[in-house]
């Protein structure tokens, strides 16, 4: 390879990579604010689905099941919901501000992780003020297709409604209907959702509301 070749190749690489870099930077600067906005909107929607009757969902804090970042929220119903239009004196723009008068807490929403067979299962669940499960949803998982991935099915998810901490246990025999029925061939995934995920999340929530954990730096560990 001659010196001329080296120069040629270097220039070739530099020019093409710079061009591609600029192109990608342009696309990124255009799309990233939209992606950010849509992510927030979707998160809000997912929370609202957990508790459709809530007027206002407020974040209480963060927690770290399995060293992963998760959040928990308080769902409120407003005695009266005032929507005011506030004018910004500096910029001159108007925006709507929702004001919740006499809010009443109607439940809590907790994000949690359960250690499954081949992944950490990201779960969102809601409880009422008596800590009885209202709804749950599996946000993300990578369990075995055909076996563990049945945690996504409605028959499995729906059986959580009305369960309290005592009954968030997995039954393999199929006889104790008051407990969570395991998916055939996927006991580990079923346990990960019910016991490691939701039951631990609920235990954490109870502790957090009593003020037994520090906000923002809490790590909940499994007890069983």
């Amino acid at each position: 390879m001659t010196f001329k070749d080296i120069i040629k190749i270097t220039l070739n690489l530099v020019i093409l990579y710079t061009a591609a870099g600029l192109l990608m930077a342009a696309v990124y600067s255009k799309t990233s604010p939209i992606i950010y906005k849509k992510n927030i909107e979707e998160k809000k929607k997912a929370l609202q689905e957990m508790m459709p009757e809530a007027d206002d969902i407020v974040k209480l804090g963060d927690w770290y099941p399995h060293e992963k970042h998760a959040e928990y929220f308080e769902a409120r119903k407003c005695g009266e919901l005032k929507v005011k239009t506030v004018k910004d004196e500096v910029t001159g723009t108007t925006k709507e501000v929702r004001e919740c008068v006499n809010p009443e807490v109607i439940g809590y929403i907790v994000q949690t992780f359960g250690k499954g067979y081949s992944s950490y299962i990201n779960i969102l669940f809601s409880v009422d003020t008596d800590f009885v499960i209202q709804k749950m949803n599996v946000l993300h998982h990578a369990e075995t297709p055909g076996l563990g991935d049945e945690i996504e099915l409605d028959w499995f998810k729906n059986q959580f409604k009305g369960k309290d901490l005592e009954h968030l246990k997995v039954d393999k025999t199929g006889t104790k209907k008051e407990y969570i029925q395991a998916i055939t061939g996927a006991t580990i995934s079923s346990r990960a959702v019910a016991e490691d995920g939701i039951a631990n999340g609920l235990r954490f929530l109870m502790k957090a509301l009593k003020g037994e954990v520090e906000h923002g730096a809490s790590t909940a560990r499994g007890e069983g």
Partner: protein
Amino acid sequence: MEHQLPEEKVSYLKILKTAIFKENVIFRLVISLCPSIAVTNSVRNGFLLGIAVVFVQVMVNVTVAALRRFIHPRIRIPIFMLIISGWVTIVDMIMAAYARAAYKEIGLYIQIIVAFASILARAEMFASKNKVLPSFFDGLGSSLGFLGALVTISFFRELLGKGTLLGHTIVNAKPLLIMVMPTGGFLVVGLLMGFFNWIDMRFYGGKGAGGAGGH
């Protein structure tokens, strides 16, 4: 692998057919076997990955063909990789911003395409030596062949492993659960490859495919 195309008359249909059948990425060239096992546990997954590959493969082939005079032969592989990862990144960002519903379905697959041997292979084998239009048809054919192979493999795996097709229950049982496991993937790919080789030998005298694994 040399493509000798007559200067005056190029049959796009022939390029398309060659890329789909004679040079089928999975069953004939035996490359990109990793996704053919990893994502074919349901027809839906196989199909969605196939669609994502069709788009990226066509764009990469066209870009490589258009830029082929500006790419020094000694550094063609890093440049091809740049083009592939560039397209994947751009498609990923644009879909995440503007096609949210579709992104939720195939976003995961778009990102793993960067590492597919089949895309690099077509850029190297065909697009770097041909004009834009033939490269477009080669990319289309090759990725459609890939899509077809994925759907065929996942058809057997989902039906035998879960007793469903596209999520609809066909048999109310799981006849061969092993089929949805990676093991089943190897079995199905191997058996189908053998079947296509048999067709090739029986009906085309072994010439239709340029010999099994002859690349």
